[in-house]
């Protein structure tokens, strides 16, 4: 049984189809990457899955449950975490508070308005654990807006992780990172894959080819190929549409 499935997924912006009849299945425990030129519809596809966009038609099921049309908060509660291409943090809150908010969203205590937030030990401990996991313990008390770019990218993922997602959607987790940071991030994604199913968008081909189990190639809203990295690289249509002019 597929963890996530899209059926004839279609999204129009005005008269322009940014996602065009996409049928995909994602199995549990694997790493999927989505590649394609700018404007291919990658981020839109992620937005459709995470409830940030509603499809024009078609269906998305997660664990056999229909999730298209749900709000992003509901999708999140079902176990789909999302990180963003551009940093999307709580800028004036500390790293720890950023993560704690996400942890707390799964805790019944979130409705409590009259007890000290520090009293929720398990929430605080778990937030600490996640801050540690993303390697930001030293800057735990720093406001998110003052982090370096690489640290912001890590926090971006930390927030998504803190909601205990079964499926993790990541939009260009390495965007704007320095080479060494990128290598670290790769290792981190590999580690995450032990516990989560991952779908991520990426531009750097060497990353895609080295860590994905499956590659999905999109162009102008369509999925033009899916398969193992090797198979996709060999696909003539992919070469023409995407890899052709660049390498």
């Amino acid at each position, binding site marked *: 049984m597929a963890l996530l499935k899209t059926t004839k997924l279609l999204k129009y912006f005005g008269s322009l189809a940014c996602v065009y009849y996409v049928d995909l299945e994602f199995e549990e425990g694997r790493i999927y990457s989505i590649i394609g030129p*700018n404007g291919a519809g990658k981020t839109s596809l992620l937005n459709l899955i995470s409830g940030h966009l509603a499809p024009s038609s078609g269906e998305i099921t997660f664990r056999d449950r229909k999730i298209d049309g749900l709000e992003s908060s509901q999708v999140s509660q079902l176990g789909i975490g999302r990180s963003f291409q551009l940093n999307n943090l709580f800028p004036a809150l500390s790293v720890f508070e950023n993560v704690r908010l996400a942890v707390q969203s799964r805790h019944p205590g979130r409705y409590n308005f009259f007890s000290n937030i520090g009293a929720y030990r398990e929430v605080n401990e778990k937030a600490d654990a996640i801050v540690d996991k993303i390697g930001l313990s030293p800057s735990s008390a720093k406001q998110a807006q*003052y982090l370096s770019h690489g640290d912001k990218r890590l926090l971006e993922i930390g927030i998504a992780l803190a909601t205990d997602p079964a499926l993790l959607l990541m939009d260009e987790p390495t965007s704007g*990172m320095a080479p060494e940071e990128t290598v670290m991030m790769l290792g981190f994604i590999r580690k995450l894959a032990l516990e989560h199913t991952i779908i991520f968008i990426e531009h*750097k*081909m060497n990353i895609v080819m080295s860590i994905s189990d499956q590659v999905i190639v999109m162009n102008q809203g369509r999925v033009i190929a899916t398969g193992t990295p090797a198979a996709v690289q060999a696909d003539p249509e992919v070469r023409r549409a995407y890899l*052709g*002019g*660049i390498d």
Partner: protein
Amino acid sequence: MLQVEAIHSYYGESYVVQGISMVLKEGEILTLLGRNGAGKTTTLRSIVGLKPPRRGKIVFMGREITRMKPFEVARLGIAMVPEERRIFSSLTVEENLKIGIQKGRVGRWTLESVQKLFPILRERRHHRGNQLSGGEQQILAIARALMGNPKFLILDEPSEGLAPLIIKLIAETIKSLSTEGMTILLVEQNVEMTLQIAHRHYVLDQGKIIYSDTNEGLKNNREIRDRYLSV
């Protein structure tokens, strides 16, 4: 033509450009290469006055432009085609072009000559900016910059996200502009393309220039290309 002397620029709190110096000669095509976050775009923004450097000096044709406002820099004849083209999406193609006109700067480029160079702009002159494809937008952005008859053209990643055919057209245009005497500064990720057209290269990493060479030199230096520029 353009001299950049040890400029330092910050983006918010992060120290992005850490003492970059460069010299451009008239009629030459120079590229700034390097990975994301190396400081290329910030360098450009410093030159055109969008992000004045905290320290250092920028001189254009004998005049210091370090602290000038962007529109003043533009009026001296420096045109920039920024990343993501930044076409005015609610304006028609023709209106976009007309905004590029600068009174007092007349020359080879007029509405007619630009449309002759890129016939697609005449065909689509009544379309709005947001109805154009990525390639058409890039062409429009270049044409709009030309309308001000600049002496010096700055292009930030013109090939980004475009189809090979359009990239070729743009590369050819850049080359022919340069043979007509235009000085061009090009920021690119697409190293292959720049190797075909540029005269000299600077490679940036973490806010500093770590390598500079002629086109031939870079072509033969595999190590630099693999270390800093491989896709």
